[in-house]
């Protein structure tokens, strides 16, 4: 498997740059002094950014790199200059310090967490050899060249060269889930020469080999180096190296020599810095802010010019009462120019509140609280695993409401990665359905259904559940076919038995095989043990030993595997494989069994089960011996061995007799089909990217409703060359074109959601029609074709075709390809993408997508650690997107619209005032009011709106997935919506200024006092502004909680309380102004007039749109309101789209999910700890596996050491010749 590493991370480039000098690495084992001269990194890991001392300067530096913070810093500096300052610096300083402090606290907390996790990792214990003695040491103290002892189930501390292991032949098993997400075991083998040292600490302590190897890099499956020891040199490759992050499995102990440590390890080199993700709203905001800044500057420019004119025309003459500043030239033109220029900056300060500093903080706070709402959602709590949804990144919530593409992993995400033996067909009879005894109907599996009790069998597994009693009865009846069937399952496989705490356990490299063997075991056909040439099973308590003559191993082309066994002199071939492959090789007679079984196979496939056919053939000795000789010859041939072997296998795997078929369920996670269909209805495109085989992927596609029979075509792209892929994609495009044409004739696709509210609906609530979407094309593309499809030349074609398909399944893709597919869509479609996965192989995709979701509660944590959100189950994605995502988006948009409105309404009052104060940058409002407006007076209600508001409750959000679509087109907040809010604010400020202007121009109190002074006027406008803005938020709030009441009324109270306190208690200069205004009726009349003028148009506008052009959201809300009015009734009438069980097309699924090459391992005996009994008859291993699977096959002896030829090497490794290892254990 050509797995490529992830794109080079910034860390690795940095570290390579740092040590550009290092072109090779030279290490001497157990020689710290020698290694010290090269200054290799030790095993200490640091992911934290700050220390106590560097925190303040570094953090401040980072914060001021944010444009907004820097902008406000500049403003603050401007305000310090007396000639310019139009506001006291406090007005900017207070919010700025608040913002900086909040962010600093958050950063400090994050970094503290990193410190904690660093020190946890660095303080793990490892056993290090020091002067021939094992010493317990911290991970951080391990250095390059040290020799470490590791024990079973321990994490590997650093990248190291294996020296010796507890297992025979220096083998060692590791799990690499943390590294590449593959959960199957891999084996590594050390040099036989070093393996001899065993666990003799003294010998290993004296080991002084010298390694010359490559420099640190991030390629996970490549290692090159040479070991020089005792005058000989040995080539080293990836198979002799275990990497940090792996876990040792099934190996009691092993010794290794550290090659790369700490940040040089391949794990760390691969963990690139997580990219800082921003939402599309963030980007839009930045654009808008820049736009606002330009608007601000143009306002300032306007004021500057106007000020110049004013000073020349009026101000110059007004100098008798208001002389110009000393620094201004006395010449009228010059003076006016200088003043005007200064005013530019003064206005920049006065009007800066159009770019609200509190915006960023408020957005962050809202997202933070929203994240908690996600974390606390009981509906996303998975009881079985005890985990709940978690927002790991708190800054992306609203993007959850805009997802257009979901990229999903299959194994562990859509499926549980549990295979269960579900049904079978044996000799024309189908087992597995539960049949109602009275009616004879097939019953659905319900909670209460009791599985068969297998406890009579001493080797039974309590986890195994089977419900059809008739099969067990058939077994007990000693039905011959049934017995043969189960014997085949117990014999024909490559599973290894293992004894763990007294219980028999199986180690299978594919979960399918494990399921089959364990099914046989529970039915009383227990696979007990195996040796290179024998298999022992227990049939109903009786021991049976079979002589294993040959394993005809599995591979992708053959799609089957066979074993040839001898018992009591009778030779028999057992074969299992894909149905079409087996059927071709059956005896040439028209058997009713064939037809019946085919029916059953179709039925199984229709239920989304993975099927296998089982067949046997009796052989006679002569034929077999003849065949064996030819087989041997083929196995030893040097060229075209694979083809020859296949041909030989073909000869013997024919004229077989069909036994039956098995059906294995690749269990989907709960609710996956429903979730997928809901998400699809919400207009989200779901792509499955899986490393699995095409057949498995398609199978799962059907069972989770990604593929349906309604589809016009399931198009498969599986070509191997560029030209062929181009051709296939072209065809696909044509097919789509044709389909569209025919659709056009039929009046177009009907995928429109229609909500009807008829008269009668009022009686029962309303019904929503979601017409079934029929037709469409699905695309299945293979990894090797994807290589070409992602080529820059084909990219466009692929994208065009794929994005028009209803669903896309990419199978056999590498992690890198997953990321590339995501990047492709991200780059070209400008759509918001979400990637969901559970394994380390999904990490790259999770990091690449706008939003990464990890499935938690699985073994590996890599995906979760890289993700932005973690969910316990795939089905919660539905709620995360349709409820939380939609709400977050809705809230954020509403928040932003209101926020800009209120700041425009507030700030532009100064602009109108400029026309009356000679463009002198005098503020209309009290400076205290200006600094408190965004902070205290108007912040809380809009925050509570941003956190709690909802147009439609969660139940309806889920019932009407179409409600999700506005997010796709950015309908709720875009440039147009922003302009609307800004204009709203603009007119609001205009009326806010003009109405009091009219009333207070000649305002006089009944006692004769003039009421037209600046402070009173400012207070009046400010008070009306607060009232209007609060009324507006009350109008905007669709969902009233006690918190909204509290904040909305509270804000008004706070305004009056603060104004009172600042003026009367602290003696502000505005003292008395507001109270004077408020005791006059004029004020109240003005207020009522202004508020009416400002709110009535808004009401009218909204009424018009809700009444005449209601959106889906409006309708559902109306329905919701009606419902709550006449609460009960309606629920059952509302048709919730149920997951419909469509009949699936007749396909053949086959259940080989494993890799080839294991057969040879078994017959060579290499992976067996003990050989039960020496077998003299068949000392020569018969099976030579065909191609060698990259990660599982035993390693070919490499270059320098091995003296024997490649063919002979197998002989060397065959059991009798193997030194050490084997017999010392038994």
């Amino acid at each position: 498997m050509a797995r490529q590493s992830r794109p080079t991370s910034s860390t690795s480039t940095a570290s390579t740059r740092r040590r550009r000098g290092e072109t090779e690495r030279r290490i001497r084992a157990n020689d710290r002094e020698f290694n010290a001269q090269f200054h290799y990194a030790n095993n200490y890991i640091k992911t934290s950014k700050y220390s106590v001392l560097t925190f303040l300067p570094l953090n401040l530096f980072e914060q001021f790199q944010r444009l907004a913070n820097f902008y406000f810093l500049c403003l603050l500096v401007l305000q310090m200059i007396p000639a310019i300052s139009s506001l006291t610096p406090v007005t900017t300083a207070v919010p700025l310090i608040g913002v900086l402090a909040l962010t600093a606290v958050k950063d400090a907390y994050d970094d503290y967490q990193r410190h904690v996790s660093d020190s946890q990792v660095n303080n793990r214990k490892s056993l290090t050899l020091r002067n021939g003695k094992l010493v317990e040491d911290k991970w951080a103290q391990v250095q390059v060249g040290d020799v470490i002892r590791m024990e079973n189930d321990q994490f590997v501390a650093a990248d190291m060269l294996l020296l010796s292991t507890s297992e025979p032949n220096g083998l060692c098993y590791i799990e690499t889930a943390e590294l590449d997400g593959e959960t199957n075991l891999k084996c590594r083998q050390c040099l036989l020469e070093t393996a001899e040292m065993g666990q003799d600490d003294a010998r290993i302590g004296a080991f002084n080999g010298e390694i010359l190897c490559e420099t640190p890099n991030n390629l996970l499956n490549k290692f090159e180096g040479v070991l020089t020891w005792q005058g000989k040199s040995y080539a080293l490759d990836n198979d002799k190296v275990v990497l940090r992050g792996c876990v040792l499995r099934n190996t009691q102990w092993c010794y290794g020599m550290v090659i790369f440590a700490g940040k040089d390890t391949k794990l760390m080199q691969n963990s690139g810095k997580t990219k800082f993700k921003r939402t599309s709203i963030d980007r839009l905001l930045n654009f808008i802010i820049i736009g606002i800044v330009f608007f601000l500057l143009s306002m300032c420019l306007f004021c500057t010019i106007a000020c110049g004119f004013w000073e020349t025309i009026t101000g110059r003459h007004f100098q008798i009462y208001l002389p110009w500043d000393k620094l201004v030239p006395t010449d009228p033109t010059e003076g006016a120019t200088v003043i005007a220029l200064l005013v530019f900056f003064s206005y920049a300060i006065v009007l800066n509140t159009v770019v609200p500093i509190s915006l960023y903080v408020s957005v962050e706070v809202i997202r933070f609280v929203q994240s908690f709402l996600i974390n606390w959602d009981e509906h996303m709590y998975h009881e079985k695993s005890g985990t709940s949804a978690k927002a790991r990144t708190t800054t992306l919530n609203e993007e959850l409401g805009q997802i257009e593409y979901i990229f999903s992993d299959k194994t562990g995400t859509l499926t549980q990665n549990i295979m269960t033996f579900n049904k079978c067909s044996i000799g024309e009879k189908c087992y597995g359905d539960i049949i109602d005894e009275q009616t004879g109907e097939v019953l659905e599996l319900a909670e209460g259904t009791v599985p068969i009790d297998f406890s009579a069998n001493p080797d039974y597994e309590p986890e195994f559940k089977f419900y059809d009693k008739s099969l067990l009865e058939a077994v007990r009846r000693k039905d011959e076919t049934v017995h043969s069937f189960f014997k085949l399952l117990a014999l024909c496989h490559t599973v290894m038995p293992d004894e763990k705490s007294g219980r028999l356990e199986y180690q299978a490299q594919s979960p399918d095989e494990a399921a089959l063997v364990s099914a046989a075991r529970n039915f009383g056909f227990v696979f007990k043990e195996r040796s290179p040439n024998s298999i022992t099973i227990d049939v109903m308590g009786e021991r049976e030993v079979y002589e294993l003559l040959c394993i005809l191993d599995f591979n992708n082309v053959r799609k089957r595997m066979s074993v040839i066994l001898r018992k009591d002199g009778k030779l028999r071939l057992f074969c299992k494989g894909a149905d079409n492959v087996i059927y071709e090789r059956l005896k040439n007679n028209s058997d009713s069994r064939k037809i019946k079984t085919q029916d059953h196979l179709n039925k199984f496939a229709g239920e989304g089960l993975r099927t296998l056919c089982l067949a046997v053939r009796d052989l006679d000795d002569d034929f077999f011996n003849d065949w064996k000789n030819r087989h041997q010859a083929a196995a030893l041939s040097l060229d075209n061995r694979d083809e020859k072997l296949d041909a030989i296998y073909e000869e013997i795997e024919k004229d077989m007799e069909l036994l039956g078929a098995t059906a294995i369920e690749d269990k989907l996670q709960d609710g996956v089909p429903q979730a997928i269909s809901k998400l699809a209805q919400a207009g989200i495109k779901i792509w499955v990217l899986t490393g699995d085989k095409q057949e498995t992927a398609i199978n799962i596609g059907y069972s989770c409703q990604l593929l349906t029979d309604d589809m016009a075509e399931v198009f498969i792209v599986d070509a191997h060359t560029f030209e062929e892929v181009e051709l296939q994609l072209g065809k696909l495009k044509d097919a789509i074109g044709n389909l569209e044409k025919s659709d056009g004739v039929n009046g177009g696709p009907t995928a429109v959601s229609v909500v009807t509210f008829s008269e009668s609906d009022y009686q029962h609530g309303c019904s929503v029609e979601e017409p079934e979407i029929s037709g469409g094309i699905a695309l299945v593309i293979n990894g090797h074709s994807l290589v070409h499809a992602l080529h820059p030349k084909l990219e466009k074609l692929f994208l065009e075709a794929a994005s028009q398909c209803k669903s896309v399944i990419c199978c056999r893709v590498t992690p890198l390809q997953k990321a590339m597919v995501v990047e492709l869509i991200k780059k070209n479609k400008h759509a918001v993408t979400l990637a969901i996965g559970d394994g380390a192989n999904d990490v790259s995709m999770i990091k690449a997508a706008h939003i990464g979701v990890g499935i938690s509660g699985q073994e590996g944590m890599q995906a979760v650690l890289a993700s932005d959100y973690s969910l316990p189950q795939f089905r919660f994605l539905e709620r995360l997107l349709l409820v939380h995502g939609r709400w977050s988006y809705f809230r954020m948009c509403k928040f932003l619209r209101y926020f800009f409105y209120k700041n425009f309404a507030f700030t532009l009052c100064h602009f109108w005032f400029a026309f009356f104060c000679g463009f002198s940058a005098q503020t209309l409002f009290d400076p205290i009011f200006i600094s408190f407006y965004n902070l205290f007076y108007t912040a809380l209600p809009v925050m509570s709106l941003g956190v709690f508001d909802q147009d439609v409750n969660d139940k309806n959000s889920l019932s009407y997935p179409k409600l999700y679509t506005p997010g796709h087109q950015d309908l709720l907040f875009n440039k147009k919506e922003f302009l609307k809010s800004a204009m709203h604010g603009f007119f609001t400020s205009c009326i806010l200024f003009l109405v009091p202007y009219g009333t207070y121009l000649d305002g006089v109190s009944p006692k004769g006092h003039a009421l037209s002074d600046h402070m009173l006027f400012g207070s009046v406008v400010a008070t009306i502004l607060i009232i209007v803005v609060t009324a507006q938020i009350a109008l905007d709030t669709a969902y009233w909680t006690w918190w909204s009441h509290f904040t909305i009324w509270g804000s008004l109270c706070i305004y009056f309380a603060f104004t009172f306190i600042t003026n009367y208690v602290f003696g502000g200069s505005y003292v008395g102004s507001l109270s004077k205004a408020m005791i006059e009726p004029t004020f109240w009349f003005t207020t009522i007039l202004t508020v009416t003028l400002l709110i009535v148009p808004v009401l009218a506008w909204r009424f018009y749109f809700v009444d005449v052009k209601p959106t889906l959201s409006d309708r559902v809300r109306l329905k919701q309101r009606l419902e709550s009015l006449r609460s009960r009734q309606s629920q059952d009438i509302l048709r919730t789209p149920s997951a419909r069980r469509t009949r699936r097309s007749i396909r053949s699924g086959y259940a080989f999910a494993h890799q080839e090459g294991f057969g040879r391992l078994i017959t060579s005996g290499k992976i067996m700890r003990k050989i039960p009994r020496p077998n003299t008859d068949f000392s020569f291993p018969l099976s030579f596996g065909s191609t060698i699977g990259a990660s599982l096959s035993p390693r070919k002896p490499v270059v320098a050491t091995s003296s024997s030829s490649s063919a002979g090497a197998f002989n060397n490794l065959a059991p009798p010749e193997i030194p050490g290892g084997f017999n010392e254990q038994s």
Partner: protein
Amino acid sequence: MCADVILKDPTSECTCDITFTLDKDFAGKVYMYYGLTNFYQNHRRYVKSRDDSQLLGRLNPKPSSDCNPFTTTNANDTRAIAPCGAIANSLFNDEIELISEKLGQVKLLNTGIAWPSDKKMKFNNPSGDLTEAFKEYAKPPNWRKNVYELDPNNPDNNGFENEDLIVWMRTSALPTFRKLYRRVDHTATGFVQGLLAGNYLLKIKYNYSVKPFDGTKRVILSTTSLLGGKNPFLGIAYIVVGSICLLLGVLFLLIHIKCGKR
């Protein structure tokens, strides 16, 4: 014209007489205002140019720099100005008398014209004898009298607590404004009912120059109602807005019946 006389020599005295006729009685309390136009009391530098601490009676040889350039008299004489700043310096100082043809001099009150809250909380005289307290301080350049001589008739109406000063210091919001100048004393005989119809003479001692910046001066006599002085704006606005709301109501009722979708 007095304006020109003043312009030539700011210290010269010039009196301006204006006669006018009241067609009907001004019933109730009558207030006299002076109005200025094109006078930018709301200019940033003007608004800023005061020292609130000084006005609270906390005299300091170095007043706040906000008062520049009216902090000290000039470069040679470093006596601080009290009250400092451009606002105080530009105090309106015309003296207006109202004479009724029938009843003679109309008695005008110069107290009760400032807001009580201002008088109480924002303006305080330094303790002790005013003349003594302000000895070290200069009067603003434009002023003809010292701050402790503003009202020769009423010793309590002097210094920072002088109501004319307090009224002036409450800067106006707009360049066209009026400020309360005097109240008619309705206890005097003949004025109990208000100001009766008849001919009147305004005698204005012309001190205050508005000519250079194209300003105008007005004298306004006004009675008040619950809503204050005469101001048609609110009434008209209410009628207009009310009608619009009514229209909208009808319009939307029609829309709702005709095209309302449910």
